[in-house]
């Protein structure tokens, strides 16, 4: 024994450093290397994915547009007690704001103001044109003369809910509520209430689809997991083929199957099971959405359940029956509990995907198959109410992140497998 390894001497490396330090340094270097490798894709995702999504969050509460157009009006708005028409100072501020701002900005702001109280847009549009002919004040009477809505106190009151540079109004709108002018919350008028119903329908469709998928997937997964590999690989193609086929192709295929003159209806009529006049309406309605979504999402349910069932030894069932359980009891008490992780994974996966669906309901849903995703798309592309679209998107996202977290708890994200 040389004295380099003497008991009380700290361990050293060959170049005379403390082993502990050298190890730590090497670990640190390895960590840095790993982080260096991760940093490029990480930054990419932050810039092209995380920041835009965060921006959506900001957009859903951002309400600064009106403040930019009406700075003078809002500066003195608090001085008004809100019971009678405001005084000349307020009219002057409004006049100067509207004549001073850019046309495009006024247009955007008035669209936004219209969400809170209708007719604001037309009032401002008309006034902005006519105000050009007004030379000087006092403005109050002239303004009321150009449009008598300026003498309507409710318009002035409605400004109260627009004053803050941020708002939760879009979130309220997304659940059929709105701000009053004094920022108290009330329900939307009857004819504008659709969102609660849509959220409800989205949840309902997702639930039905998830349950249907589970019912259909369970026996098939069991069959695939218990058959000899030779056969199960063949049958697996039936599951994987739709999984790999383009979504739109599957939708077209279902249109052929389910439409009025589709394969299903034709087959039923040809075989005398259905009268020609009573062809079933299975497409462009709620039923169509359910059928098509179930078929599209079924592989997402089969694959995780199958992969769990594959690992369950058939000996457990034999042992249970050997101990006197009937096959049904053995299945209920022994087999089913073992499949719970796969079922949990499948259920959450299908639910997450179903709840954000857009393309399928859009194409096969007709009027009563539309979901919240379609409404987001509508506000993005057609009505251009981007604040509301963002708010609904953020709400949907929040729900999904909670489910994602559950998924992580049940299966662990590391265990996610494909194909």
């Amino acid at each position: 024994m040389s004295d380099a390894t003497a008991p009380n001497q700290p361990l050293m490396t060959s170049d005379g450093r403390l082993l502990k330090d050298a190890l730590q340094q090497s670990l640190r270097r390895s960590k840095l290397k790993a982080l260096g490798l991760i940093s490029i894709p990480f930054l990419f995702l932050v810039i092209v994915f995380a920041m835009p999504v965060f921006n959506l969050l900001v957009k859903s509460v951002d309400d600064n547009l009106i403040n930019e157009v009406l700075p003078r009006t809002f500066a003195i708005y608090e001085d008004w007690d809100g019971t009678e028409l405001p005084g000349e100072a307020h009219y002057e501020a409004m006049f100067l704001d509207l004549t001073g701002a850019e046309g495009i900005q006024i247009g955007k702001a008035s669209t936004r103001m219209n969400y809170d109280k209708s007719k604001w847009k037309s009032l401002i549009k008309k006034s902005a044109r006519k105000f050009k002919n007004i030379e000087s004040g006092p403005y109050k009477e002239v303004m009321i003369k150009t449009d008598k809505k300026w003498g309507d106190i409710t318009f002035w009151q409605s400004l109260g809910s627009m004053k803050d540079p941020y708002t939760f109004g879009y979130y309220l709108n997304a659940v059929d509520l709105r701000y009053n002018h004094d920022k108290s919350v009330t329900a939307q008028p009857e004819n504008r209430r659709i969102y609660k119903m849509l959220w409800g329908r989205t949840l309902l469709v997702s639930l039905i689809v998830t349950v249907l998928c589970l019912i259909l997937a369970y026996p098939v997964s069991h069959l695939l997991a218990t058959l000899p590999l030779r056969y199960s690989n063949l049958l697996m193609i039936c599951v994987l083929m739709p999984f790999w086929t383009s979504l739109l192709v599957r939708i077209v295929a279902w249109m052929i199957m389910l439409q009025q003159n589709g394969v299903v209806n034709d087959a039923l009529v040809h075989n005398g099971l259905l009268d020609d006049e009573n062809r079933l309406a299975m497409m462009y309605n709620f039923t169509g959405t359910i059928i098509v979504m179930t078929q599209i999402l079924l592989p997402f349910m089969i694959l995780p359940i199958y992969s769990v069932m594959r690992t369950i030894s058939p000996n457990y069932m034999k042992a249970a029956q050997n101990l006197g359980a009937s096959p049904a009891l053995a299945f209920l008490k022994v087999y089913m509990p073992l499949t719970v992780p796969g079922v949990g994974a499948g259920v959450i996966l299908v639910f997450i995907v179903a709840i954000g669906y857009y393309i399928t309901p859009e194409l096969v849903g007709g009027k009563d198959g539309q979901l919240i995703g379609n409404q987001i798309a509508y506000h993005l592309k057609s009505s251009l109410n981007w604040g509301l679209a963002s708010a609904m998107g953020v709400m949907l996202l929040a729900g999904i992140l909670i489910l994602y977290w559950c998924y992580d708890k049940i299966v662990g994200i590391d265990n996610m497998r494909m194909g």
Partner: protein
Amino acid sequence: MRALGIIALWVVGLFLLAIVPIPREGLLAYVKPLLLLIAIVYSIYRISNGMMPRYRSTGQLLWQMTYIGICGFVLFFLVAPLIAVIPLSFTSKAFLNFTPEMLNFDPAGYSIRWYKIMVGDCSDAVVTTVCGDKWKIGAWNSLLIGLTATFLATVLGTLAAIGLTRPNVPGRKLITAFMISPLIVPLIITAASLFFFFAKVNLIATFAGVVLAHTVLGLPFVVITVTATLSSFDHNLMRAAESLGGGAWKNFRQVMLPLIMPGVISGALFAFITSFDEVVIIIFMGGADQLTLPKQMWSGIRQEISPTILAVATILVILSVVMLTTVELLRRRSERIRGISPA
């Protein structure tokens, strides 16, 4: 062998059923459905019986038949619509249903005119059919965007996966969750977010914008598949290579890459099919120039639905079978390399 016999019986039976004219009135009308029902039940019986031991009771057999019947129905439900597209794409009429000629196997009922129209050969087109280069342009654009996005996603995803599977990475779980999140966030939300973002940086209606968006969508697949392959990778191999003096790049290319190749390729295939199949992003931020195959299909379905779409669909179904076979073979190869299953 028994399965093949049953399938052959079915093909012949259906053919006979189709060509034998049976009146559609009166009691005789029920002959066809009745025969069909008997055939189905008999097939289920044969399959179930073959799967059970000789000492089974009748009750057990009935139970097994129910089970097989349900499974058969589900598998049929999964595949039937896709199979139905294939013969229908060869129709000679402009309708999306089986014409009587087709059902009687009359050659006049079949043609390849919709395939001709798909590739831009308009000689058979009637005045009302839309015919042009759009499908070709779409396919070309999809391929271009798909390949670029796949390349980017594969490089970035592989980098991330290698980093994430190194020993002692701080915050591995969180970073993995973040990397996979584009897969979880609904497409409509991703599309909305990127729409606002790209509007700010002038990437709306550009190829670059679409490629970037598709890269984001493809990245998680590569991360998942490569991480899975790397989970059983022996890091000592890299240490050995380092001790033998190769540079980092050379070691990666000659030692690690060949071993993780199956994971990289199947991740790339997933990324490609995601981009190739992607509708939502493209209809939100693609301009007229970014006409991809899904976008053309989307407008086809919504405006002028014609059997041309079925021709395209048939080709895509075949493509999907090719892809899934490739991925399956890759998976087996990777398992063999990793020694999970015997060759």
